[in-house]
């Protein structure tokens, strides 16, 4: 009998510092990622807003597509900075970087 393992795809949590609304920044990242790498890649990357903040937010994406997401974050206008990256949201918050505090 063969055993099928259901593996949840690995993800990365990114804390980003941004100008303006967090929702606008995430939409800009998704749009840029789609323009540069295609709509299939952006769907596979599964970019989601996890925690909203006034100037700092946390997003998550699939680990396999992290490079595309980082490039997209770097090339959006208005700009945003990747201030931290971790495999778990807990660790990202504990590292702090003086940025997003746990809610």
């Amino acid at each position, binding site marked *: 009998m063969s055993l099928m393992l259901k593996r949840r795809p690995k993800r990365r949590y990114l804390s980003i510092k941004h100008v303006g609304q967090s929702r606008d920044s995430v939409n800009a990242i998704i749009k840029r990622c789609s323009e540069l790498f295609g709509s299939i890649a952006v769907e596979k990357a599964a970019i989601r807003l996890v925690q909203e903040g006034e100037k700092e937010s946390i997003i998550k994406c699939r680990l396999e597509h992290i490079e595309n997401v980082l490039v997209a974050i*770097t090339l959006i206008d208005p700009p945003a900075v990747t201030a931290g990256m971790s495999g778990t949201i807990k660790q990202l918050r504990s590292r702090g970087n003086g940025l997003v505090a746990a809610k």
Partner: protein
Amino acid sequence: MEALLFNRIDLYISGDIDIASKIKTLSISRFGAPFEGDVREAVIYRLRTTPSGAVNYPYLVVSENISQPADVLMIRDFNKVKEQLKKKIKKGTGLELTVNPARKMDARSVGKWFNNLSDLYAFCHSSSCQFILSSGARSEYEMISGPCLDAILKTGGIDPQSHWRNMGEWVEERLLRNVSYA
């Protein structure tokens, strides 16, 4: 600490930025900035001309003019200056491309920008020059973290680890040449 295994250098930031706090947050070891009178730690100063007297800070001479002797030559559009560079460039010069203008570009232009980046890297490799990728940030929001710079290099077909190693060696060698004690 994984991100700090190699020393990344962002040679071009400007504006009112608290550099000391950004070193750990962004995983960048050193920054380059225009000299504005005060000397800060982990900063390499970008000067337009070689200082006439001795100075007590590390500096690199930066120019946009191919004919002017400089440590770093800023390149806006590599394809436009390629032929001139072939004739006039001195071995060991750093050729710098900044990321900041690409933010305002449409997708097609960003594609061309990446092509430029790869071409410039190949040119630097063949002409014994140093390829430099800088943020060109004018505010803290425009700064680029180490992993993001790595992602841009990888997308341009450049191995980040060897790039940062070469870059570190090049910067040290250039700073030793420019050393002077006030």
